[in-house]
């Protein structure tokens, strides 16, 4: 009989260790394997979370570690939730989230639909479309600032070509009305391929036989799309929206590189504002309360979203 990998591992285990392990139950051995991961999870995720919650009730400042820290109760939460500036950043985040998710879902699904149709150069175009996703957000932010330049920017010239306006008459990142759209365009450009890839996986998982059965029943293409394609791709699409929603709620690097939160605080998203409070104004306790509010919001939203996704999968 040939020796298996398990036999080889058993033979090479030192006798002392083998004797020790032989006395352990399967459950104990399972715990030995899982324990390092649980320990890391506790140290890296759970402990900082509990520490942040604790700090949110104090006036601790990280730049004054030796200063006396006093317990302020719910004062930090009260101040944040009555601050019109923070309310404004929440609105900027809502605008960014709503439009990026809408555009990414619509364009991503349309692209996946097109790519799924077999044509020459299919793989080449898939690679080309996926390229923006592979770039660093800092790089993307940097070169889009050049594309948005009123004097030399390609974007302005393309808009001018189609609309007949003067390319130097508007600046995407310097005008209050246009800056929120500038960040939406860049994020959509960068992350639509991600949604497209997930939708493509969904489209390719639909068995051809279902469409054939629909053809036999004389279902029109339109009906096939709404009763076969959309319901079967929906769980994938919802997963993509969950990932992008959480990511965009925390969006920081791309927007900082593009607009730095400006003009004024028009594009100052919550994560940028939070960073300013924590590491520029050094109000650590206040920033911790802010982080807790954002955490609870994302956690609550993700919970109901996962529940909805499971329901769709069960159908």
């Amino acid at each position, binding site marked *: 009989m040939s020796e298996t990998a398990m036999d080889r591992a058993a033979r090479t285990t030192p006798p002392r260790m083998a004797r020790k392990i032989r006395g352990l139950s399967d459950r104990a051995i399972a715990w030995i394997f899982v324990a390092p991961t649980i320990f890391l999870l506790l140290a890296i995720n759970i402990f900082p979370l509990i520490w942040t919650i604790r700090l949110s009730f104090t006036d601790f400042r990280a730049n004054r570690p030796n200063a006396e820290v006093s317990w302020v109760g719910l004062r930090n939460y009260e101040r944040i*939730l009555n601050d019109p500036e923070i309310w404004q950043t*929440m*609105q900027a985040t*809502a605008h960014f989230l709503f439009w990026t998710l809408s555009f990414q879902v619509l364009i991503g699904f349309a692209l996946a639909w097109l790519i799924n149709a077999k044509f020459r150069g299919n793989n080449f175009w898939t690679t080309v479309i996926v390229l923006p996703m592979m770039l660093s957000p800092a790089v993307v932010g940097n070169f889009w600032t050049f594309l948005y330049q009123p004097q030399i920017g390609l974007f302005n010239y393309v808009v001018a070509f189609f609309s007949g306006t003067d390319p130097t008459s508007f600046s995407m990142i310097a005008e209050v009305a246009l800056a929120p759209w500038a960040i939406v365009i860049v994020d959509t450009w960068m992350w639509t391929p991600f949604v497209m890839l997930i939708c493509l996986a969904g489209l390719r998982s639909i068995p051809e036989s279902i469409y054939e059965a629909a053809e036999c029943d004389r279902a029109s293409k339109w009906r096939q799309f709404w009763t076969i394609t959309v319901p079967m791709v929906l769980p994938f699409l919802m997963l993509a929206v969950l990932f992008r929603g959480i990511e965009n709620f925390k969006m920081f690097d791309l927007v900082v590189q593009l607009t730095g939160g400006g003009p004024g605080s028009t594009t100052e998203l919550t994560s940028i504002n939070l960073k300013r409070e924590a590491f520029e104004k050094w109000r650590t306790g206040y920033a911790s309360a802010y982080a807790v509010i954002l955490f*609870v919001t994302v956690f*609550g*939203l993700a919970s*109901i979203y996962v529940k909805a996704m499971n329901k769709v999968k069960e159908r």
Partner: protein
Amino acid sequence: MTEFFNGLLRLRRGPWEMLASILIAIGVVMLMQPYVLWAFSHSFTVTLAGTVLFLIVSHFPE
């Protein structure tokens, strides 16, 4: 509707999760809406209540 209220009374997971989800959704809308500062101020309380409720009721029987 009667089924929903019966489920609430008999502590069933489905209707309670629905209630918690509605609370969370209202809280998030209150947090991000641009109209009333009062709603923004109370948004966290509503979201937190919904989230805690969701965590508790997800352990209820089906």
